[in-house]
């Protein structure tokens, strides 16, 4: 069983209003590719992973064999996180969510602006490399951040939206201005993909 780098669902320059083309090329073609390659190397020759999704593997990360656990957390997490990241952005993104997701945001956070503010706070408070997430946990929306490539799936929580705050995600255009990058991210957010993940998570 080997994992493969997913194709980007849009052109490298499609997200220019938030993320520049060079960053997309390197982020997808080199960083994400390295996670996929290193994940495959870590699990090579281990038939127990045959037919398992990366999500299923991460959900039982704590029980993985000692000699590969951290490699799978880092690289399997990197693969799952980036796959979600690409899919939850779109050149036609932005705006507001609708339907049950919008209702859940209103009932949990009061309004969309508050959710955005909390995602930003989690992103800015993450010292070093990591992610800021909106997750579904016990049927409810939550905001949290993880270090490095740790996946919320390792903690029994289902990510439906993630902002990559590794410096490689934004440094070429924004340098030290992580806040500006997070603000711009909302211009490309693909709410219909986030809503589909929310439905699937069984809120």
């Amino acid at each position, binding site marked *: 069983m080997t994992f493969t780098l997913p194709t980007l669902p849009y052109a490298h320059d499609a997200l220019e209003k938030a993320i520049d083309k060079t960053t997309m090329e390197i982020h997808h073609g080199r*960083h994400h590719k390295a996670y996929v390659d290193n994940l495959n190397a870590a699990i090579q020759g281990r038939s127990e992973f045959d037919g398992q999704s990366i999500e299923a593997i991460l959900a039982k990360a704590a029980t993985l064999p000692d000699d590969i656990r951290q490699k799978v957390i880092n690289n399997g997490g990197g693969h799952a996180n980036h796959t979600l990241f690409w899919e939850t952005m779109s050149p036609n993104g932005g705006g507001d969510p609708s339907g049950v997701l919008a209702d859940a945001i209103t009932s949990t956070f009061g309004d969309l602006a508050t959710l955005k503010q909390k995602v930003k706070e989690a992103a800015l408070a993450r010292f*070093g490399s990591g992610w800021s997430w909106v997750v579904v946990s016990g049927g409810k929306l939550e905001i949290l951040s993880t270090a490095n490539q740790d996946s919320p799936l390792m903690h029994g929580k289902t990510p439906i939206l993630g902002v990559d705050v590794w*410096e490689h995600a934004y440094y*070429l255009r924004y340098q030290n201005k992580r806040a500006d990058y997070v603000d711009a991210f909302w211009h490309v957010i693909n709410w219909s993909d986030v809503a589909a993940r929310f439905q699937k998570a069984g809120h």
Partner: protein
Amino acid sequence: MRTPDRRDALRVALAGGAAMLLPKAVVAQEAAFSLPKLPYSFDALEPHIDAKTMEIHWGRHHKAYVDNLNKALAGKGEWEKKTIEEILKSIADVPAPVRQAVINNGGGHHNHSLFWASMGPKAGGEPTGPLAKAIDAAFESFAKFQAKLTAAGMTRFGSGWAWLVSDDKGKLDVISTANQDSPLMMTPVLTPLLGVDVWEHAYYLKYQNKRADYLAAWFKTVDWKVVAERHAKAGK
């Protein structure tokens, strides 16, 4: 390493009997820690480290660590009077509500101060004298030391540092730390002699994902005289 700053100048003034003349508010405004001057120009480490990276790394990232350290310790009189080394060595005693902020920003301040001072134009090469002997004793050869420090830099997943450290007897080792954690916070304390920053902000503009290329280039900027002085002090 804390370089002389405005607070030291103020102390001299106070010692000189000027204290009575200074309104309290002025004293309170003096920040405890300040951004040290770079000992060379932004473009001095070209082509190994580019001028733009130096400008942003020093002028924005390091400055933010200093500002946030000052904020964390503001009004905590006894802590503001200590050196950054003293603070990091007794990190467990720093008040819990600000401890993580001091680890991150105090570590960031100290690590970067060491980093700038241990690089220079027309540097690189290999150490000589007692440091060279200690490196051979610990790692067999300079080449093996170089490979080990490079491996420590490459295997640090996420943000952090790779270090050449000394224990209190002058024995050397290579370690890496996450984020801005300082070897001085370890038990027993390890003295950092040489550190290489592997946060992506240290190399991304020029090297992007090629951390290995950055590490190879960085070795050409190491000022071994500075490292040898640190080693001589650490072994005493």
